[in-house]
């Protein structure tokens, strides 16, 4: 039985090796912290954040522990966004994505090669939980744009806060128009405040946009805005590739997104309604976008009516800021049009200096609503048409 003995000793060796490997992986875990403290000791992960309070920047930083943020899309921007919020001690994160981590993502931040193949939400949740166990993390691994998942997405947004109500803010970190429009539809319906974010496909511009249904333009109010990258279209080669990406641009956009999220949630500074980034010129246009009264989304129009019916509180400080011209240099040949003059039909694709609409739309009727379509009972039924299509 020499072989049995040999095998036994080999097993013993392997067990020791395994134990060693296991101990390597077992990273030191920090215990949960019940109360944020401003005590400056090396074991307190919140001391520098709570210092914001001592310095008078934020009135009540601990409030962040009660807040819930949904992050839709956990890719180059969303993962970094989630990490920043986790490190800031956000109460709860709700993550949505249906993608897997791939080695092709490694030019971006956050995910690591050993996570390839895992679902992005699961991989992210694990890392985030290790960084800060105080944050509650909920994950949803599905595509929000399909009919089956969309209702669940809406329900989740409206019931997943720590108080079982609507989340405090939705952050869109998706990479496609369809998903942005799905979030827009949901948030208009639910009257949910959200931030849109994006990086251009050539990786050298990006933006964030704060959408307060009824108060600021929704994502569907106008064609998407693009920050002009100052690249001659003829020299921009798209052959052979869909999109480029840079960790820098994505990190900057995530930074803008979370900075404005914090300002809004913790009530300090001014929250930008639109903040663009042109990496080629290091140019950062900001502006306020008013909703389109003829927006295609009927919930957007409903929210606008509700907002107009509400009494406004106007702060004096805002007025002072708004009276100063936004751009000293007139590099783009801008002419200012004062909004107090009667509104002119805006046919220009250029919204602001360095920002334009991706495309223009034909003029639409003032009220696109009731398009009463005759239910064609005379023609073939849907089943007949389906059968006909199959038999061609």
């Amino acid at each position, binding site marked *: 039985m020499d072989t049995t003995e040999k095998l036994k000793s080999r097993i013993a060796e392997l067990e020791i090796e395994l134990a060693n490997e296991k101990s390597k992986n077992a990273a030191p875990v920090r215990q949960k912290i019940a109360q944020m403290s401003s005590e400056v000791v090396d074991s307190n992960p919140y001391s520098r954040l709570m210092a914001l309070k001592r310095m008078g920047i934020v009135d009540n930083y601990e409030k962040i522990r009660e807040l819930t943020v949904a992050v839709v899309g956990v890719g180059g921007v969303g993962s970094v966004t989630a990490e920043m919020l986790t490190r800031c001690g956000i109460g709860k994160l709700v993550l949505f994505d249906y993608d897997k981590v791939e080695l092709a993502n490694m030019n971006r931040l956050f995910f690591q090669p050993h996570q390839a193949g895992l679902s992005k939400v699961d991989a992210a949740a694990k890392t985030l939980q290790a960084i800060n166990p105080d944050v509650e993390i909920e994950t949803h691994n599905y595509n929000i744009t399909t009919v089956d998942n969309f209702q669940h997405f809406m329900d989740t947004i409206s019931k997943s806060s720590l108080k079982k109500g609507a989340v405090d803010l939705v952050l869109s970190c998706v990479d496609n128009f369809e998903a942005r429009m799905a979030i827009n539809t949901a948030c208009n319906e639910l009257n949910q405040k959200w931030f849109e974010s994006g990086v251009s496909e050539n990786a050298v511009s990006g933006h964030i946009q704060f959408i307060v249904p009824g108060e600021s333009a929704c994502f569907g109010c106008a064609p998407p805005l693009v920050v002009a990258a100052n690249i001659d279209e003829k020299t921009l080669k798209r052959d052979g590739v869909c999109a480029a990406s840079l960790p820098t641009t994505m990190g900057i956009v995530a930074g803008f997104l979370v900075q404005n999220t914090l300002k809004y949630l913790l009530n300090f500074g001014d929250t930008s309604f639109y903040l663009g980034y042109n990496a080629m010129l290091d140019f950062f246009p900001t502006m306020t976008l008013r909703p389109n009264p003829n927006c295609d989304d009927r919930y957007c129009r409903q929210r606008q009516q509700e907002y107009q019916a509400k009494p406004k509180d106007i702060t004096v400080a805002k007025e002072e800021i708004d009276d100063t011209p936004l751009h000293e240099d007139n590099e783009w040949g801008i002419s200012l049009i004062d909004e107090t003059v009667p509104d002119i039909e805006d046919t*220009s694709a250029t919204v602001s200096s360095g920002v334009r609409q991706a495309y223009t739309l034909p003029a639409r009727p003032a009220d696109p609503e009731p398009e009463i379509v005759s239910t064609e009972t005379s023609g073939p039924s849907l089943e007949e048409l389906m059968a006909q299509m199959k038999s061609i």
Partner: protein
Amino acid sequence: MRQMRLFSSRDSGLVSELRLVIMVDESTRKTLSSIPLLSTKAGPRDKELWVNRLKEEYQALIKYVQNNKGSDNDWFRLESNKEGTRWFGKCWYMHNLLKYEFDVEFDIPVTYPTTAPEIALPELDGKTAKMYRGGKICLTDHFKPLWARNVPKFGIAHAMALGLGPWLAVEIPDLIEKGVISYKDRGDE
């Protein structure tokens, strides 16, 4: 609160208009004009109206496929689940007298027809950079503006004609040449 709006005199909407006109070539224009336009603006969340829209989708698709057959340019078949939310079928491309066939699939997004369906050829996923994850084809810069300008008149048939058709014509010969895809004799020819 007084707001300022800024206008630039340089990049007017006219430029985008011109670009669009140039980018749709004559043959695509001809193909497009022969596909019936749709009129019901309804998505899969709009219960009864969606049925109307689906009927229009099928009518347009049937007409388009019949036209293709009539002009000896038959290149796809599609069918859907009974809710019309998930579509699947085949498309093929003739190259040097050989037929290269691929599975096609896509979901109808909740925001349809404001947003176009994202057509996918799953078996080519990872084989070309002109695709997004899941084998969704990468459309030209011109597709989205054109689609947006024609909501709700464009339907699935238009997405096939403007999106997948041109994509196959550019990408398949390239993929064959690179040896990424090769001819499979399916014995059905």
